[in-house]
C-alpha cells in the first residue's frame, strides 16, 4: 500500500472518529468537545496538505494516479459470471488531492468559525459531531474508486445534510426543509442508482477503472441509447445533489440550517460533489448525454440568477447564486470544458464559503436578522467582514484579478467553442444564457453589497411583529442572543470567526491559481487537471484497442494521433491552442469531437473575456444605477413589471408546482391505495368471509329442512314400527332366549329346505 493511500485513509477516518467521540461523549467533555472536532480536522487538513504537496507540487504530473482496493463483499463463484467480488478502494490523483485539501481546509475553517457562531447552543456538541460525519462522507466521495462507494457516501452526505439542515428541528420550517432536501436528493439518487445498475448489469463491477476499460473495449452489449441513458441517469445524481433544475428546490430551503453549515455543505463542498461526480464519469458520457447536461446547466444558471435578483434574505440570495454557479459548472462539463469546470468548482468553493461565512458573521452581529431590507451601513462597523465579503463578491461576479474571473471565463470560452463545434444554432443558447447569467450575477451581488454594507442603517424600519418572530424562531439562540440584544450594538465578530474569512478571501485571489490574471489555463490547476479522453467515442474503434491495451482511461495522451484526430481540425486549431498555453500543447485529443471543442474553446478565450467583462460591467452598472444612484426606483420597476417580479420572487413557482403535482399527487395516490387496500382488497377478503358465512347459513337451513327432514322421517317410521314391536319386548330374559332359539331353529328349517330341494 502506498504511503499516500495510507495517509488518505487516515484523513478519511479522522472525521469519523470525531463524530463517534462527539456523538457519545459531547456532554462529558469540556466545552462540549469542540476542540476535538477542530483538532481532528486540523490534523486531517495537515495530512491532506501533505498529500497535496506531494502530489501537486512535488510530483507535478498530470497523469499521476495511484489506487488501492480490497475485497469488501465476496460473492463466491457466481454462476454465469465467475468469481465475483465487490471491491472498495481509494484512488488518489491530482483531482482527489486538490479536493481533499479543499474539503478539509474549508471544513476546518468552518469548524473554527462555528466555535464562535454556534457558541451557547444547547446541542453544541452534537453540531460538531454532525460536521464530522459530513466531512467523513464528503471525503469518502472524493476518495472513492468505484460507483458503489460513491453512492454510499453520496447518501451519507445526504444524511448529514439532512441532520444539519434540521439542526434547529424545533422550527417547522427547518423540519420541512430537511425532509425536502433528503427527498429531492433521493429522487436524484434513484436516477443515479439506475445508471449504476445499467453499468453493473453489463460489466459486473462497480470500479471506475474496470468500467471504463470495458467500455473502451466495446464490451457494452446494449445499444448506445442505453449508454446515453446511463450517463443521464448518473447525472441525475448530480441534479439532485448539486441542485440543478428541476431538483434545485431544496437548496434555498436548506438555508434553514446554521449558516456555517450552509457555507460548508450547501455552498462549498457537498453541492459541488455532484459536479465532482460528473467529472468522474465524464469519460463515459456520450455526446447526447453531454448535450443534456449542458442544457440543464445553462437553464439552472439562468433560472437561479433571475430568482436571486429579487430575494431579500441574505442567505437566499447566496443560495440562488450557488445554484446558478453550480449551473455554470455543470454547463462547463456539458460543453466539455472539463478542467475549467473543476477549476470553477474549487474557486467557487472558496469564495462562496467566504460569502456564506461573511453573511453568517453579519447575521450573528445583527442578532439573527437575515433580511437585507433591514440592514445597511455595516461597512464601518464590520470592516473585516466588509473587505472579505466584497473580495469574494468580486470573485463571484467575475471581475478580473479574482479567481472567479479565470474559472468562469474558461467555462464560457468552452461554451462558445462548444457552440461553434456543434455547428451553432440552438447551441448558441448555452453561452448566451451563461453570459446573461453573468450579468445578472453582477447585478444581484452589487445589490447585496449595497443593501448590506452601504446606505443608511434600516434596522429600525423593520416591522415589529416580524422582528419578534425572527427571534422567536431562533429560540435555540435565545440565551445567547438576549445577552447582546439589550445593547443593540452591531460589532465586528471575534477572531475565530474572522480568521476563516480572511483565509478564504485570500484564496479567492488569482495569484493562488495562475500567474496570468487573464488566463487560468496558464496556472497549475488547469495543467494538473487535463480533460480525460472519452471512452465512448462513436467514431473510433481504435480507442477500444488502446484502452484495452492498458492505457488508463483518464489519460489524454494518445499515441496514434494522426490516425484519429481529423487533420483539418487539428491543423486549424493547433496554432491557437499552442498560443494559449503549452498545457494543452502536448496533448492531442483522440476523440475528434472533444478535440474540436477544446480547440474552439481556446480560440474563443478572448472573445469570452470580452463579452463577459462587458456583461459583468453592465450588471454592476445596473446595480449602481438602481441602488446607489437611485436613478431607477426598484419598487416602481417591480410594480411596472409586476408579473415578472412576482415570478422571480416566488422562485418561478417551482415549489407550488411540485406541491400541486408530485406531493399532492403522491399523497392522493397513497390515500387512494390505502382506501383501495382497506375497502377493496380487504373488502374482498371480508366479502369472501361473509359469503362463506352466508353459504354456511344456507347450508344450515338445507341441513335442518332437507337432510334433517329425511332423518326425522326415518325416525317417524321407526317410531311407529317400534310401537308395534314394543310388545315383543317383555324384559324377561327367557323370552329373548326363546326368540333366539326360534331364529336358530328357523335357520335349521331353512337349511333343511335347501337340503331337500
Amino acid at each position, binding site marked *: 500500500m502506498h504511503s499516500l493511500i495510507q495517509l488518505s485513509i487516515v484523513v478519511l477516518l479522522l472525521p469519523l472518529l470525531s463524530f463517534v467521540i462527539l456523538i457519545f461523549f459531547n456532554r462529558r467533555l469540556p466545552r462540549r468537545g469542540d476542540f476535538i472536532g477542530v483538532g481532528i480536522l486540523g490534523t486531517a487538513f495537515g495530512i491532506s496538505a501533505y498529500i497535496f504537496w506531494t502530489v501537486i507540487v512535488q510530483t507535478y504530473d498530470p497523469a499521476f494516479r495511484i489506487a488501492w482496493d480490497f475485497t*469488501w*463483499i*465476496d*460473492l*463466491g*463463484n*457466481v*454462476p*454465469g*459470471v465467475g468469481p*465475483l467480488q465487490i471491491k472498495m478502494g481509494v484512488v488518489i490523483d491530482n483531482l482527489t488531492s486538490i479536493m481533499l485539501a479543499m474539503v478539509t481546509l474549508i471544513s476546518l475553517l468552518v469548524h473554527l468559525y462555528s466555535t464562535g457562531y454556534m457558541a451557547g447552543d444547547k446541542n453544541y456538541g452534537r453540531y460538531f459531531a454532525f460536521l464530522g460525519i459530513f466531512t467523513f462522507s464528503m471525503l469518502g466521495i472524493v476518495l472513492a474508486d468505484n460507483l*458503489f462507494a460513491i*453512492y*454510499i*457516501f*453520496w*447518501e*451519507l452526505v445526504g*444524511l448529514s445534510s439532512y441532520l444539519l439542515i*434540521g439542526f434547529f*428541528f*424545533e*422550527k*417547522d420550517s*427547518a*423540519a*420541512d426543509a*430537511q*425532509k425536502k432536501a*433528503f*427527498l429531492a436528493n*433521493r*429522487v436524484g*439518487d*434513484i436516477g443515479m*442508482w*439506475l445508471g449504476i*445498475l*445499467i453499468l*453493473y*448489469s453489463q460489466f*459486473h463491477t462497480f470500479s471506475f477503472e474496470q468500467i471504463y476499460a470495458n467500455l473502451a473495449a466495446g464490451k457494452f452489449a446494449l445499444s448506445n441509447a442505453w449508454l446515453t441513458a446511463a450517463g443521464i441517469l448518473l447525472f441525475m445524481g448530480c441534479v439532485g445533489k448539486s441542485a440543478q433544475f428541476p431538483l434545485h428546490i431544496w437548496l434555498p430551503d436548506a438555508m434553514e440550517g446554521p449558516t456555517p453549515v450552509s457555507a460548508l455543505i450547501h455552498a462549498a463542498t457537498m453541492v459541488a460533489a455532484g459536479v465532482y461526480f460528473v467529472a468522474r464519469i465524464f469519460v463515459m458520457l456520450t455526446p447526447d448525454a453531454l448535450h443534456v447536461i449542458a442544457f440543464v446547466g445553462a437553464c439552472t444558471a439562468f433560472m437561479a440568477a433571475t430568482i436571486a435578483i429579487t430575494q431579500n434574505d441574505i442567505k437566499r440570495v447566496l443560495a440562488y447564486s450557488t445554484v446558478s454557479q453550480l449551473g455554470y459548472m455543470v454547463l462547463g462539463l456539458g460543453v466539455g470544458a472539463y478542467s475549467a469546470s473543476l477549476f470553477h468548482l474549487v474557486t467557487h468553493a472558496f469564495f462562496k464559503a467566504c460569502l456564506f461565512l461573511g453573511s453568517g458573521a453579519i447575521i450573528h452581529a445583527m442578532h439573527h436578522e437575515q433580511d437585507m431590507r433591514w440592514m445597511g451601513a455595516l461597512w464601518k462597523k464590520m470592516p473585516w467582514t466588509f473587505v472579505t465579503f466584497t473580495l469574494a463578491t468580486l470573485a463571484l461576479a467575475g471581475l478580473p484579478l479574482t479567481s472567479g474571473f479565470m474559472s468562469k471565463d474558461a467555462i464560457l470560452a468552452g461554451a462558445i467553442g462548444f457552440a461553434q463545434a456543434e455547428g451553432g444554432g440552438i447551441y448558441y443558447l448555452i453561452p448566451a444564457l451563461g453570459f446573461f447569467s453573468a450579468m445578472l450575477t453582477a447585478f444581484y451581488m452589487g445589490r447585496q453589497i449595497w443593501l448590506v454594507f452601504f446606505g443608511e442603517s434600516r434596522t429600525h424600519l423593520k416591522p415589529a411583529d416580524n422582528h419578534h418572530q425572527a427571534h422567536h424562531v431562533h429560540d435555540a439562540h435565545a440565551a445567547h442572543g438576549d445577552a447582546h440584544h439589550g445593547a443593540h450594538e452591531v460589532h465586528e465578530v471575534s477572531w475565530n470567526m474572522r480568521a476563516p474569512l480572511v483565509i478564504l478571501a485570500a484564496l479567492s485571489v488569482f495569484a493562488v491559481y495562475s500567474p496570468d490574471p487573464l488566463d487560468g489555463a496558464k496556472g497549475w490547476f488547469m495543467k494538473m487537471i487535463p480533460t480525460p479522453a472519452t471512452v465512448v467515442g462513436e467514431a473510433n474503434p481504435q480507442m477500444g484497442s488502446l484502452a484495452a491495451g492498458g492505457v488508463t482511461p483518464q489519460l489524454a495522451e494518445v499515441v496514434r494521433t494522426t490516425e484519429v484526430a481529423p487533420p483539418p481540425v487539428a491543423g486549424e486549431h493547433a496554432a491557437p491552442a499552442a498560443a494559449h498555453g503549452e498545457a494543452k500543447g502536448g496533448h492531442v485529443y483522440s476523440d475528434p469531437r472533444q478535440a474540436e471543442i477544446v480547440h474552439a474553446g481556446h480560440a474563443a478565450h478572448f472573445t469570452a473575456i470580452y463579452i463577459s467583462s462587458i456583461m459583468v460591467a453592465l450588471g454592476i452598472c445596473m446595480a449602481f444605477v438602481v441602488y446607489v444612484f437611485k436613478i431607477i426606483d426598484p419598487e416602481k420597476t417591480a410594480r411596472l413589471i409586476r408579473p415578472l417580479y412576482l415570478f422571480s420572487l416566488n422562485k418561478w413557482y417551482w415549489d407550488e408546482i411540485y406541491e400541486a403535482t408530485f406531493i399532492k399527487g*403522491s*399523497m392522493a*395516490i*397513497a*390515500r387512494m*391505495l*390505502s382506501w383501495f*387496500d382497506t375497502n377493496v*382488497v*380487504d373488502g*374482498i*377478503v371480508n366479502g369472501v*368471509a361473509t359469503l362463506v358465512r352466508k353459504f354456511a347459513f344456507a347450508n344450515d337451513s338445507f341441513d335442518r329442512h332437507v337432510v334433517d327432514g329425511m332423518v326425522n322421517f326415518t325416525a317417524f317410521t321407526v317410531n311407529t314400527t317400534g310401537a308395534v314391536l314394543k310388545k315383543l319386548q317383555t324384559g324377561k330374559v327367557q323370552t329373548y332366549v326363546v326368540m333366539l332359539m326360534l331364529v336358530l331353529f328357523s335357520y335349521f328349517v331353512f337349511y333343511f329346505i335347501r337340503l331337500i330341494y
Partner: protein
Amino acid sequence: MLSLIVFLPIIAGLVILAVPSSQKQIIRIVSLLAALAQGVLAVLIWRGYDPSLPGITAGAGGSPLGSFQFVEKVPWISLNLGGFGSLNIEYFLGVDGISVTMVILTALVSAIGVLSSWTIQKQVKGYFILYNLLASAMMGCFVALDFFLFYVFWEIMLLPMYFLIGIWGGPNREYAAIKFFLYTLFGSVFMLLVMIGLYFSVTDPATGLHTFSLVAMATQTNFNVAGAIFAPENHLWRQIAFIVLFVGFAIKVPMFPFHTWLPDAHVEAPTPISVILAGVLLKLGTYGMIRINFPLFPEVFHASMYVIGIFGAINIIYGALCALAQKDLKKMVAYSSISHMGYVLLGLSAGNSEGMVGALYQMFNHGTITAMLFLLVGVIYDRAHTRQIDKFGGLASYMPVYAAVVTIAWFASLGLPGLSGFISEAFVFVGAFSSETTRPIAMVSVLGIVFGAAYLLWSLQRMFLGKRNDDAAYDLVTGPDGHEHIHFHDWKGKLDLDGRELAMLVPLVVITIFLGIYPMPVLGMLTSSINKLVQVLSPVVMSQM
C-alpha cells in the same frame, strides 16, 4: 445441536408449566434463560458453520452430509399403507447457508421478544408457554429438511400465534387472530396436498424409496417415478403445484393481494408478537419459496420469474404508498414490512446470485430492522397508549435517546448506506437489474426508495421534530430545574428509554450498523448456497437433465 436449539424453548415451556402461575418473575426468567441458551447455541452453530459447503441439494452420493451441516436424520414415522406403499417420514434436520442465517435471526429475535414480553401482565404463564412453543416451531421450520416435518412445524406455529394475538391483542383482536389463522390455514391446506403428491413423485436415490426429504426433492433427477403426478413431463400439474405452493408461502410473506391480514394482525398483536411476526414469521414465506417452491419446480420458477417480480414491485410501491397514507404508526410500520418484503420477492425473481443474495440478506436485515421498528412503536405505545402519529410532535427535544434510536431505525428502514438495509436493497436491485427478465420491473421499483424515504421521514418529522402538537398525548410541564419536560398520563417509568428497552434495542442497532459496514459475516454464509441454488434454478442445468 439442532434438536437442542429447536426444543429448548419447549423444554422451557414444560418447566414453566411446573411453575405456579403467581411466580411471574420466575416464568419470565426461565423463558429468558432458554432464549439466551438458544442464542448461545446459535452462536455455536454460526462459529461451527463451514461456509464452503453449499447445501440446497445433496452432496456426493445423494447423502446430505457433505452438503448440509449439523445433520440429524433418524426414521420417525414408518407406516405400511398396503396398496399405497409405505409412508417413510424422517426426523431430518440440517442447515445450509440459507437456513443458518435464519436460525441466527430467529434466536436473536426470540430473545429480544422475551425481553419485550416483560411488560405482559395478563396470564403470564400461558403467554410464555405459548411463546416458547412458537419459538420452537419457528426454529423447527428453518432447520427441518423433511417436508413432512417442515409442515408439522409450520402448522404448530399457527396455533400459539392465534392465541397470542387472540388473547393478548388489542381491542379488535379476535377478528385479527381469526383472519390470520384462516389466511395461513388456507395456504397450508393446499400445501399438504402438494406435499403428498410430491412424496409419491420422488424417490430417495440412496434407498430407492419414496421420501419427504427436501434434499432429495431438490434434485430433479429424483423425480423418477413413472406416471407420478409431478413427474417432469407432467407440466400442467407441476405448474399447478408451483402456484399452489407459491400462494401458500406468499400469504405468509405477505404478498399483494394476500397481505391484508398483516396490518390487522400487527395492529392488534402485542409488541413482542409483532416483533416475532415481522421479524421471523414473514421470513418463513420467502424461506419456504427458496427452500421448497423454487428448487422443486425450477422450470416453472423460470417461467414465472417475471410475474413474481411484478408482484414484488407491486408490494414495494403499493406497500410504501399505503404506508404513506397511514395515521397509525404501527400500521405504517406494518405496511413498510409489506414494502420491504417486496424487495425480497423482487430479488428472488431475478434468479441470479446478486438478487438472491440481496433477497436473503434483506430477509435477515428486515428481521432485525423491523423488530427494532416494532419495539420502538411499542415503547411509545406503552407510554402514550396511542399510536396516532398526529398525537405526537417535538418528541426529539424531550426523549433524545429514543429519538436517536428511532432515527437510526428509520434510516435503516429507508435503506441508508452504512446500515444493513441498504446493502440488501442494493443487491436486490443489482440482481433484478442484471437479469434481462426483471430489468423493467427493477426500473419501476426504484421508486419505492423515494416513497420509502417519504413516509419514514414524514412520520419522523410529525412525531419527533417541530414542537408539541396541541392535541398531543402528553402534557408539557416545566420541571424544577426550569427546563420543559413532557409528561405522559399514567406512565410511571422512565421518560426516555429505560434499561430493559435499551437492552433490546442496542444489540439490534449494533447489528444493523455492523452489518451495514461489513456484511460478510452474514453474506459469507450465504454465498456458496446461493450460487448453488442459482445453478439448480438455471435453465442450463435443467436442459442437461
